[in-house]
């Protein structure tokens, strides 16, 4: 398995810690980038990113808006949205953008499922 | 008291195992609410008479059967997850009627073709007994509440519509008044202008009889214009559109200005204004222009209703935080039967008075409205045959 770069975007540090630990556990050689907000995430635009895990509910730029921007900046990256509140409209929007969708709370299985998209 | 749930069920049958079971069974069956119990296997283990009647499912048809078998239409619905929550995490829930229309398929037993659905409010509660977990479901018939609510809504809607209609009428009336007044004013101003030119002699000297007639025409035109202004004032006050610029006002300055303005009036009626009592350097809380308007009204009224050669006395008195300005005349006083109407619109003691004293009959009602809007008051004391004292009360700001 080649090295991949994963970007985790979530305003909760604890969430980021949790996701990171699951990823690192399974793929210790993968590079992890973290951002606490949409604006911060966009500063990584010069890096090579394979997988993005984005929290939907963030102050400032929400996850979906960020995901749309990232989709055009990184056409080959796999993007997955995490959310506590699954609404049909959000789900449809994600589907139409070609973005994955997972319901919080975060579990190992769910992260594993996301990672399998780029393994 | 009870050893087994089956005892409770049999308690609801005629032949019961024990008296207490029978009694408890009777209590449950007499309940005006639906009561049933579900166990951890999601099977119904208790089913009261209300449930039998409302669901048309007998006790035997319910007891021991899975909940979702009895109510297949409720599989996957909120009630199912709420029952699971009660059994798994001991969570109590309320399912209100308005957010959950028609929860269980329950009907009133009616004769006739139409089956009437029972409107329901449902409470789901965890119960523990003998180390076993159960879920109690209580169903309340809220059909009367729904009906009351329906009536309430209709009435509220009607009230809202009536209010809107009243507001529309009020607005229309207000617009009508100001439009009409403006429409009346324009030609009157023309008439006054023309008459003024004629009476001034600029268009040629007038014969005395002609001059007299023109004078009468002028006066009445003036009178009409005053009347229109007064009507507009009243309309503005009533619709809350009159501007009041409230602030500290030097009372003596305004009073003296008003006296000066009314001097010619006093001369016309051959009376003398006398400032009997004053308080120097007094600031009151008022709108200067409007206060002047009220003072003018009182002073001119006093002149109008005084006998020739009399005095009109003005006094300024202080009572704590209020100032009272009294205007006293020695006229005929206000007749008793008229006293209660004096501040009403178009009220003058006698129709014949109107022609004698002039005025629009609106002055006092305007003054009253103005005083009230300024947080003050207006009133009078009168003795028939002796005279009348009109007074206004106004808030003092400070005394220098």
């Amino acid at each position, binding site marked *: 398995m080649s090295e991949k770069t994963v970007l985790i975007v979530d305003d909760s*540090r604890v969430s980021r810690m949790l996701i990171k630990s699951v990823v690192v556990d399974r793929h210790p050689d993968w590079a992890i980038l973290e951002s606490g907000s949409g604006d911060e995430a966009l500063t990584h635009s010069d890096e090579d990113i394979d997988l993005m895990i984005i929290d939907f*509910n963030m102050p400032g730029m929400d996850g979906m808006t960020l995901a749309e921007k990232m989709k055009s900046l990184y056409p080959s990256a796999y993007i997955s949205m995490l959310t506590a*509140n699954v609404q049909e409209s959000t789900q449809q929007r994600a589907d139409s953008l070609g973005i994955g969708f997972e319901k919080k709370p975060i579990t190992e299985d769910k992260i594993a499922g996301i990672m399998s998209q780029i393994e | 008291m009870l050893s087994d749930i089956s005892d409770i069920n049999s308690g609801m049958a005629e032949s019961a195992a024990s008296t207490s079971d029978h009694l408890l069974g009777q209590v449950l069956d007499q309940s005006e609410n639906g009561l049933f119990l579900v166990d951890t296997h999601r099977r119904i283990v208790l089913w009261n008479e209300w449930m039998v009647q409302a669901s048309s499912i007998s006790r035997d048809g319910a007891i021991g059967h899975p909940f979702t078998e009895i109510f297949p239409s409720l599989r996957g619905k909120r009630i199912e997850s709420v029952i699971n929550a009660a059994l798994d995490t001991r969570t109590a829930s*309320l399912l209100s009627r308005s957010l959950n229309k028609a929860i269980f398929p329950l009907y009133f037993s009616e004769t006739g073709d139409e089956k009437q659905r029972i409107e329901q409010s449902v409470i789901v509660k965890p119960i523990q007994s003998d180390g076993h977990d159960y879920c109690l479901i209580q169903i309340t018939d809220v059909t009367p509440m729904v009906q009351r*609510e329906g009536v309430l809504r209709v009435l*509220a809607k009607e009230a809202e519509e009536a209010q809107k209609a009243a507001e529309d009428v009020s607005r229309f009336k207000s617009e009508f008044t100001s439009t009409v007044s403006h429409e009346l004013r324009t030609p009157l101003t023309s008439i006054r202008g023309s008459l003024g030119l004629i009476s001034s002699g600029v268009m040629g000297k007038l014969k005395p009889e002609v001059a007299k007639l023109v004078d009468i025409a002028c006066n009445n035109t003036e009178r009409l214009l005053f009347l229109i202004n007064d009507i507009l004032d009243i309309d503005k006050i009533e619709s809350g559109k009159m501007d009041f610029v409230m602030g500290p006002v030097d009372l003596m300055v305004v009073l003296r200005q008003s006296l000066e303005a009314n001097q010619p009036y006093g001369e016309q009626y051959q009376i003398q204004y006398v400032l009997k009592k004053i308080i120097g350097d007094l600031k009151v809380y008022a709108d200067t222009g409007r206060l002047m308007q009220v003072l003018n009204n009182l002073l001119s009224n006093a002149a109008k209703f005084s006998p020739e050669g009399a005095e009109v006395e003005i006094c300024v008195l202080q009572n704590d935080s209020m100032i009272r300005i009294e205007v006293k005349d020695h006229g005929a006083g206000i007749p008793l039967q008229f006293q209660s109407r004096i501040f009403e619109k178009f009220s003058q003691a006698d129709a014949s008075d109107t022609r004698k004293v002039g005025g629009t009959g609106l002055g006092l009602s305007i003054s009253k409205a103005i005083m009230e809007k300024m947080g003050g008051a207006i009133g009078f004391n009168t003795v028939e045959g002796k005279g009348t004292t009109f007074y206004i009360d106004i808030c003092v700001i400070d005394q220098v």
Partner: protein
Amino acid sequence: MLEISELQRDYITEILNISMGSAASVLSEMVNEAVSLSIPEIDFLPRCDAAHKFDQINTVKMSGVTQRMSGAISGDALLIFPEEKTLTIVRALLGDTVPVESLTEMEQEAMCEIGNIILNSVVSSVADILKREIVSSLPHFIKGTGKEVFSVESNNHDDLVMFLKVDFGLESQSINGYVTLMLNVDSLHDFLSQLDAQINAI
């Protein structure tokens, strides 16, 4: 105000927001409209300080829902909004347009259910963190000034209040309300140590 660390605050917020998210999903599905719920602020205050906080909203009429808790935590849980906002929420969710000035009987019942869903989710999150059981009573409608409504609590000097600001998001607007839970000093200590244990396990 009790000092909790940045990390502890982060963890509680995340957990509460997840369960509020679920509650919002449930509500959304019930009324077929977009509903969002989040908790932008959390404080732990001694009871007298909490009462002072209510002083600011003292003269505004509040209304909402209360449930009595027992088990690991005992006391009242409150969910309250300024009265006219409660009206807005209920009317928006029921799709009502009737201009009745205060909540009708049926609307109060609906508010009780809404409150029940939200309070149950907050309480169950706290119970999860404590790894103990908390049982909630059925919801009751309450109404009064901020101060009146708050002093529905029992007079226990050891009481601490978990004070949450709640954002109730409807299609057209977002409404601020409050959730308060009464804790005692021991419960709070348990709560924080369980929190730390769970954070360290990550």
